[in-house]
């Protein structure tokens, strides 16, 4: 059914096992498959697709809360493109059906597609009688902009703007994948955009702690190939540590202004990523006075009981491990951990397709399953 030549994960040679390199970021997975870089890897290398797609790993309880909030007539729920299409299983549905925010919008809910978080601020200013909820997702790349919203909200005393925060941190997730050792990872490609914000210190500590080569990579085919060859050379020599193959964008110190915004507004928390389970320090939460903007607190005042009930449930659900969507066929959890290829899943390209995804990795262009579907599947 699928192109076996593109299978990258498994042993090929008679004696020598291949070195397993994980590209952590979904944007990189997309480039690799679109340009067929997996067809011309350095000798002895196999690729494992990582979990770095914020749409794919946003915890299910947060999505359930977003769905419940969007159902409240007084709420304007806003978020970014792909987030609106993530299927959320309907609890207790015998047919294992799911719902997404775009379907809710079709049924009359006020769900808005935004492209930058400050648009949520604008909505709250324009609709003072409504409750505007920003479902804020993404890695350290998008979190600084959310921090700006939180600060502006405070400055403007916009009590009808609420943040449902699902920001995640990449390096703790990389550490978690290396620590559990279920899938043997010999080297990692670190996401360049995240490193352009956080710098190289955290990544350096990770590389030293687990004694692995980590190469900071960009997103163009050329940049990724360079990074792959660099990691191949490091593996050959038995080196570990960090190499920066994305110098044009990533400064060793990162972006101090963005870091300051993050430090001002957020604090790291343990968070259960969808498909990966609990990750120590894997999420960000609003801290101090900014926590007033957290939808779980801010809606308590001035909203209806109907809007508050789902938030109460959310409160205790966030720290528990969440599994892939109800459909028992779906192996998104293993795909996200690099333990199987999308084509190994029995639902792939059959019951699960981009137009009706079962698991989150089929939703976003950056999800490994969607990328396989687009560029590998032969129908």
């Amino acid at each position, binding site marked *: 059914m699928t192109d076996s030549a593109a299978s990258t994960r498994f042993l090929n040679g008679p004696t020598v096992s291949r070195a397993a390199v994980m590209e952590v970021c979904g944007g990189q997975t997309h480039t690799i498959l*679109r340009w067929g870089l997996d*067809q011309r890897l350095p000798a002895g290398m196999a690729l494992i697709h990582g979990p770095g797609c914020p749409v794919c790993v946003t915890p299910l309880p947060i999505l359930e809360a977003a769905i419940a909030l969007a159902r409240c007539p007084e709420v304007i729920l806003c978020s970014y493109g792909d987030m609106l*299409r993530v299927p959320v299983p309907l609890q207790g549905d015998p047919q294992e059906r799911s719902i997404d925010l775009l379907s809710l919008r079709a049924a009359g809910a006020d769900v808005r*597609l935004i492209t930058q978080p400050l648009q949520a601020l604008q909505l709250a200013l324009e609709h003072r009688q409504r409750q505007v909820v920003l479902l804020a997702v993404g890695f350290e790349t998008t979190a600084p902009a959310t921090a700006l919203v939180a600060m502006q909200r405070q400055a403007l005393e916009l009590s009808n703007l609420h943040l449902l925060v699902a920001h995640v941190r990449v390096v703790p997730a990389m550490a978690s994948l290396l620590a559990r050792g279920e899938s043997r990872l010999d080297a990692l490609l670190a996401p360049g955009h995240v490193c352009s914000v956080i710098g190289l210190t955290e990544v350096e500590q990770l590389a030293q702690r687990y004694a692995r080569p980590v190469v900071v990579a960009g997103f163009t085919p050329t940049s990724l190939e360079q990074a792959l060859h660099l990691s191949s050379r490091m593996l050959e020599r038995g080196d570990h540590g960090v190499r920066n193959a994305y110098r044009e964008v990533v400064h060793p110190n990162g972006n101090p202004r963005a870091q300051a915004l993050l430090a001002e507004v957020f604090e790291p928390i343990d968070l259960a990523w969808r498909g990966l389970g609990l990750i120590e320090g894997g999420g960000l939460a609003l801290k101090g006075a900014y926590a007033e903007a957290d939808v779980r607190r801010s809606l308590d005042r001035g909203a209806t009981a109907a809007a508050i009930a789902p938030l109460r449930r959310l409160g205790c659900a966030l720290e528990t491990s969440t599994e892939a969507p109800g459909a028992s066929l779906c192996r998104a959890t293993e795909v996200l951990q690099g333990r199987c290829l999308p084509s190994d899943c029995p639902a792939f390209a059959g019951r699960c397709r981009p137009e009706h995804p079962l698991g989150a990795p089929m939703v976003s262009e950056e999800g490994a399953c969607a990328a396989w579907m687009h560029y590998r599947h*032969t129908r």
Partner: protein
Amino acid sequence: MSQENPEALIRLGHGGGGTLMRDLINAEFRRLYADPALALHDATVLTDTSGVLAFTVDSSVVQPLQFPGGDIGSLAVIGTANDLAMAGARPRHLSLAVILEEGLPLALLRRIVTSIAEACHRCGVCVETGDTKVVERGKGDGLFLSTSGLGVIATPRPIHPAGIEEGDQILISGDLGRHGLAILASRHGLELHPPVLSDLKPLWPAVQALLEQGIRLHCLRDLTRGGLAMVLQELADVGGWRFAIEEEAVPISEAVQSSCRILGLDPWHLACEGRFVAIVPAGDGDRALDVLAADGGRRIGVVTAPAQPGGGSGAGTVIVHTPLKTTRRQHPPSGELLPRIC
């Protein structure tokens, strides 16, 4: 809104069939008609209908109503005329139904009608019949247009994807993605640097030029919704063909390329409104390219063989050869194009 002059807005009464509607038609739409005396008549009579006719219909619901490089009016007319051109027909006659939303500024309507008139002129079509309705505020999106087009077939046979043959060459008339990106950017308030204008333009002149050179046109298809990826897949599916496409040959401007990189969009998925794919016999490929190259046309691939042994319809395959000497399969987009998160 209370300060607005109510005279300057569309009111429900404009669709009521009375004098208000008559005055609106006379003031705004009458100038579009081939025979203005017919603007208020029930039906038009076409007398010059010799030859084989092509007939098509289109609904236009675009938001925003005006976008960089066009508006809903020019889009409706040119889109309909282009559909006729893709069947090998010279566009001739147009019907125009407008559904106006209560509260639409008359000034905006006037600008769009002017744009319709200009587009009709560019396409060589005349509005022969029309209809005007008004819906309550909140029940329309400002303005919907529905257009039907009649054209006269100018090719020996009507053009249809069933005409594709093994060994044919696949050409594209210009670069990808400008219309889709321009719409997406203005809908979501994205400021693109450099700015990108819609590629909206009539396609009949290019088709006519190909016919004048004696090019045998096995198939034509405009690259509208779904973009190049959708069009190639649909055409491959008709005869169960395998298409081999050279990625490097597909023209994409640097402006579109860089915006797509930032937004996480695939230029192959973006709609065009002034581009088409032409599939021609290998022997005609060079001459077809001579005609199309002036506007940025390129030869992008070939019809290699039936995708399945023995051929047949269904399950065609589009194989893309990348400049890195790798291959991929190109699938169409699944639904609405959404900018990605990071």
